[in-house]
């Protein structure tokens, strides 16, 4: 294992994949400036600064992907994806299908989002659900350095368009990354970060940490929370979530993104449609508010689901259990 930050893990993934496959190229506003070692190792042809024009950067990736290259584009902050929407949603996501399968679009569109930098809603907008809702795309949003590396490598190797989100609050967070020659984490598999039988906490990105802390506190109260890190939002690993629900019968979904039609809605819907018979309590959604991100530190913080809120939600769900236990203890 090697300890490294998310940023370093991403960089390693890019370097390794460019080394492995010469069809991989990196494009974006400042990618060459920010990664001079890649320019040196792979040449200015494969590491390209672009004009400030997300629509053509993304569109060029789509055209290149369908023509034999495997582009990775860095689109910087998630709200800028608004300019890349046609390329990603209407072209990359639809033209394989509309053409009857004539084209493949092996491309990765990277962007950052999330609270932590006080930059406000035009830089901080957790809009991953918009891409999950769009057909033909895959969506990834890891939470650990190892996954950033392994999932980015898998995304680059995937023959489908992948939108890869980096929670900017995790950029400088360190984690252990396996030292194996080729650390690849397959898309579409959630990770059970902590095993528990009383309640299932489902999350992804920065809020996985919130769930883990909450689980720690709950443990002290004798409540065993299972924590699932989705990692890939699309395709969604329903199996892992449902397996956990069959065990716990309780679901709390925790996301920084807002709730309405968000991933939290999808998870709650999954429970309501496919795990109803095992559910023992109302599902709880703890999400960011349905409001743009504010810049002010206190407002940015106030928008986040907290450890306390998770703990409280779980306690609320388990009231009957606790009451039951007390009764047992008293008897």
């Amino acid at each position, binding site marked *: 294992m090697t300890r490294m930050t998310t940023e370093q893990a991403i960089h390693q993934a890019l370097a390794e994949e460019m080394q492995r496959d010469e*069809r991989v*190229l990196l494009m974006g506003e400042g990618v060459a400036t920010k990664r001079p070692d890649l320019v040196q190792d792979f040449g200015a*042809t494969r590491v*390209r600064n*672009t*004009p400030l*024009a997300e*629509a*053509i950067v*993304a*569109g*060029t*990736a*789509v*055209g*290149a*992907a*369908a*023509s*034999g*290259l495997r*582009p990775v584009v860095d689109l910087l902050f998630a709200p800028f994806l608004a300019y890349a929407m*046609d*390329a990603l949603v*209407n*072209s990359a996501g639809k*033209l*394989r*299908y*509309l*053409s*009857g*399968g*004539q*084209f*493949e*679009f*092996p491309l990765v569109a990277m962007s950052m989002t999330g609270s932590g930098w006080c930059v406000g809603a035009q830089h901080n907008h957790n809009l991953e659900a918009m891409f999950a809702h769009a*057909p*033909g795309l*895959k969506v990834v949003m890891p939470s650990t350095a190892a996954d950033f590396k392994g999932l980015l490598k*898998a995304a680059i*190797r*995937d*023959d*489908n368009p992948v939108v890869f989100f980096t929670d900017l609050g995790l950029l400088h967070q360190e984690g252990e990354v396996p030292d194996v020659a080729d650390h*690849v984490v*397959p*898309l*579409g598999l959630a990770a059970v970060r902590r095993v528990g039988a009383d309640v299932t906490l489902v999350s992804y990105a920065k809020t996985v940490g919130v769930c883990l802390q909450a689980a720690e506190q709950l443990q002290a109260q004798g409540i065993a929370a299972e924590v699932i890190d989705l990692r890939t939002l699309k395709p969604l690993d329903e199996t892992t979530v449902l397996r956990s629900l069959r065990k716990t019968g309780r679901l709390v979904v925790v996301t920084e993104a807002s709730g309405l039609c968000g991933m939290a809605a999808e998870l709650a819907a999954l429970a309501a449609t496919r795990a109803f018979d095992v559910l023992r309590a109302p599902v709880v959604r703890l999400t960011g508010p349905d409001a743009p991100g504010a810049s002010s530190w206190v407002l940015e913080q106030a928008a986040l689901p907290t450890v306390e809120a998770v703990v409280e939600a779980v306690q609320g769900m388990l009231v009957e259990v606790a009451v039951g236990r007390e009764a047992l203890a008293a008897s």
Partner: protein
Amino acid sequence: MSAAGMTDALRRLEAMLLIRAYEEKLVEFQRGGAPGTCTSVGQEACAVGVVGALESRDRILTNHRSAAHLIARGADPGRLMAEVLGRVDGYCGGRSGSLHISAKELGVVLTSTIVGGELSMAPGVALAQKMGQGEPGGIVAVFFGDGAACEGIFHEALNLAVQWQLPLLFVCENNDWQAFVHRRETMPDNAIADWAAGHGLPVATVDGNDVEAVHAAARDVVAAIRADGQPRFLELVTYRLRGHFEPDDQVYVDADELARWQARDPLQGQADRLLALGALDAANLMQLRDRVAARIEAAARFAQASAWPDPRTLTHHVYAEQGARS
């Protein structure tokens, strides 16, 4: 005109007749309840002139008004019609319908009906070509309209092609219409060539209703791109003789303007030219028309006989099968 030139010119006339007959058949189908189409009636010379100047190693991107480009490239009218009718034997298995037909086997790739979509992807196709993914020496041509030139992506594509020195031919078919809006309501006169010129690449404006003029201009720019790998811009001045999307009563079209352009029908122009040169007589022309009509009748039969897609295949082709490559 040399003998070889005349043969080529005759071939171009036949291609235009084939396109016209194909689209007229689709209009007939539409009247019978089939989905409508954006016809290129009046613009056949653009497609035939430019596509004829390309080689098989070149790639083409087109748009909602693609039939002429596809047929000029040698697409099978039967498979095209099957696609329009939503049948399995269509180039896209019926998933596309008329609006986004690609035929990768012919080098017609990534057709987009989002106006500007083709412009957004064309630099990427050209970049792949430049980076060695296509056939050696191939170039890319992207077809779009005067309306698409109003989308910002037009400028982004031009700038990237210039900046990255991409082997890309921009072909603007300026047909004076953007669906139900006349070009004059959307831009100054001559704007398109001025805008393109602002990007610093060579720009040529040509009579898009004269197939020989189009062809000559296209041959020159294609050769130039192949020689230096740099982008070029070709504006073809033409006119949409039918409506935007069938059926369209064109009540909003100025009758005089339409009549002026009808008098400049590119098929008639080419026929007249060849008749005048003696490359053709009335009987030959009749034969040509008959041959074309027979092909289209056969195509129509083929398309109508083609099966509907199996509803159980509804979600096939959303994703590439292979998830992760090693």
